[in-house]
């Protein structure tokens, strides 16, 4: 008996997508495509309607939208997005770079495709095409002709129409209220530090920065060692390379605490030996996650783009996570803090 969704896979998100500017036309008529690009294809950076330029005098957050956030069985979350008039679930993936659309949808709707210099998912699965949709409507914002990478068929989820990534998300403050199943979008024009509206209790403000590829990264502490982590809602697990784990935590080859999980699949296709180690505490600012579940994988299968740590949805779901891209910070509390 085959259950479609019962496979336990380690799922990572895109680590190395080329910049949108790298998009090259597949057709021989290069000038036409470039001309269209200049005339009618704004960079996704500028695509959503800019929110209010100045913060409210009373320092209230400017809420743009509240979206129902659906939790999939994997723990990953989806929100409704409309592409060319078709609404569907899009996975929210802060660890990606450029938003993506399913190959099936792109084919069915006859979206124009362009060859690109490509990007690579962890596990080495490449994506080499961009589709141009007529429009994407998200949270009341109309985005005209956004270029969207095509999700490789081998890792596509049949139900998910696309992947919503920071090229669109970063125009907002994105507030993940996992416990309430809601994603709030706020104007990034807020008074400094006046963000945590959901609780009067303690919270942590953690600086984030974008790495060279555009992933949001933050410094975290794992059992007393500082690491750079990608904040990745598109990764099912939190993941660390084996070599790094051995080096930082002095884990010997015969350490009985390092338990093999057997061979896992990265993005459903790349087999890799995985391990688990009983880390005691992961700290983000003042927030502590006890006994964090971190999957350790052999680095060789991850390619050259291996981050120190991918902080996946399994860990992030335990937080109320507010990402203020423009401020360069994220605010976190326990998920159920009210």
């Amino acid at each position, binding site marked *: *008996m*085959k*259950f*479609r*969704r*019962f496979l*336990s896979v380690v799922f990572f998100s895109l680590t190395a997508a080329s910049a949108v500017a790298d998009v090259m036309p597949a057709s021989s008529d290069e000038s036409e495509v470039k001309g269209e690009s200049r005339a009618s294809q704004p960079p996704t950076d500028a695509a959503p309607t800019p929110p209010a330029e100045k913060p409210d005098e009373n320092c209230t957050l400017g809420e743009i939208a509240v979206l*129902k956030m*659906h*939790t*999939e*069985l*994997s*723990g990953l979350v989806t929100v409704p997005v409309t592409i060319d008039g078709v609404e569907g679930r899009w996975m929210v993936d802060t660890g990606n770079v450029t938003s993506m659309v399913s190959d*099936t949808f792109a*084919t*069915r709707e006859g979206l124009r495709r362009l060859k690109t210099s490509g990007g690579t998912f962890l596990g080495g699965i490449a994506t080499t095409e961009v589709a141009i949709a007529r429009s994407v409507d998200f949270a009341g914002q109309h985005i005209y002709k956004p270029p969207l990478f095509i999700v490789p*068929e081998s890792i596509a989820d*049949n*139900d998910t129409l696309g992947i919503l990534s920071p090229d669109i998300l970063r125009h907002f403050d994105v507030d993940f209220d996992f*416990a*309430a*199943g809601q994603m709030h979008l706020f104007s990034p024009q807020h008074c400094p530090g006046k963000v945590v509206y959901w609780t009067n*209790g*303690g*919270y*942590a403000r953690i600086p984030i920065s974008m790495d060279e590829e555009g992933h949001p990264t933050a410094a975290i502490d794992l059992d007393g060692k500082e690491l750079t982590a990608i904040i990745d809602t598109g990764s*099912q*697990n939190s993941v660390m390379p084996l070599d790094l784990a051995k080096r930082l935590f002095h884990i010997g080859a015969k350490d009985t605490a390092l338990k093999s*999980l057997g061979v896992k699949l990265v993005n459903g296709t790349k087999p890799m030996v995985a391990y*688990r180690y*009983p880390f005691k505490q*992961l700290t983000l600012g*003042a*927030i*502590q*996650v*006890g*006994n*964090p*579940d971190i999957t350790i994988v052999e680095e060789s299968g991850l390619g050259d783009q291996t981050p120190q740590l991918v902080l996946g949805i*399994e*860990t992030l*779901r*335990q*937080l109320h996570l507010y990402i203020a891209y423009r401020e360069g910070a994220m605010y976190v*509390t*326990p*998920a*159920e*803090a009210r």
Partner: protein
Amino acid sequence: MAFAWFCAGLAVASVPAEASPYSDFNAGIALRNSGECREAIARFSSALAVPGLLDDLRPVAFHARGACHAELNEYPAALDDFGDSLKLDPNDYDTLADRASVLIELKRYDEAEADLRKLQNIRPDLTPGYAMLGAMYEALGKYHQAIEQFSVPIDNETNPAAGYALRAHAYLSYGRTRDALDDAEDLVKLKPDSRAALRLRAWVYELRGDYDDAMRDFDALIRGTPSSPDLWRSKALLYWKMKRYDDAAGILATLDPSDGYNVLWLAIVRAAGGKLSSEPAPQKIDPKKWPGPLNVLYQGHGTPESVRAAITADGPDYSERDECEGAFYVGEWHLMHNEVALARPLLKKAATTCVVDYVERSAAEVQLEQIE
């Protein structure tokens, strides 16, 4: 605590983590993703036992717990949970699909069909509704209806590649190999870089007896993945059908000798080439684990009756696959011993009862042609 690793308690500063329906829900998701279904069920049960879990998460918790029950073959409990989930979220197509899977497993086909029809109505653009219903019809021998279902993703252009692949399979089950080849060709045109498409076409060519065309596709596949033992074995079996027994044996002799099927086929092709195997018995094959009883037979230490006893040892739920394979390989064993009269009914049984996916079916057809 058995699953301490997965219980990532959370605290602000020194505040200890407190158990809550939401933390139980999260732990359940993590445990399920780690394959720890028994523990996941316990955590989902805790999450659902008391008020407090967000209404939107309750159907997910029921669905996930049901999925765990299904993984553990606890089908009644799975159906209860899927039903509870659907009461809260009647249009969740994932839950409908998973409930249909369980209903098919329980042979409650009418109910499964109702769920899949509803899924199709809710999301006509999703392939699983048609794929699952078509596969159910195909398994029931309702080939017309199966083909009708698999044609939908092609006709409405939602997923023609999947439609071609599934429909080609149904055509093969139906014996319409020309139509299967048309679909396989269309799939290769649609997905020229797809190895799965090329594999399908090779298989269709082979079943049609177009061995040279099949060999061309297999060689292309092997050039792409030269270390795939499955492809090499497929090529060896193709050589056997082409009566190139030495070539077949040359390949099989290089494959993993701890794989019982490799050993069986090596014996078959050597016998066909007039060289009865005198190899020592492989040491790594478990004689009790299928196809171990067949290996024991081929090594001269068993009898057809002992194979039969091994197949039926599990009682009325014995594997249909073992039955099909048992018929073929015991039939081949009789052929090796020049017992054609004993081989014929077994090969006929394999040719008619093995589903089209099993190599033993087409191999039995080839043998029957030769001995008739």
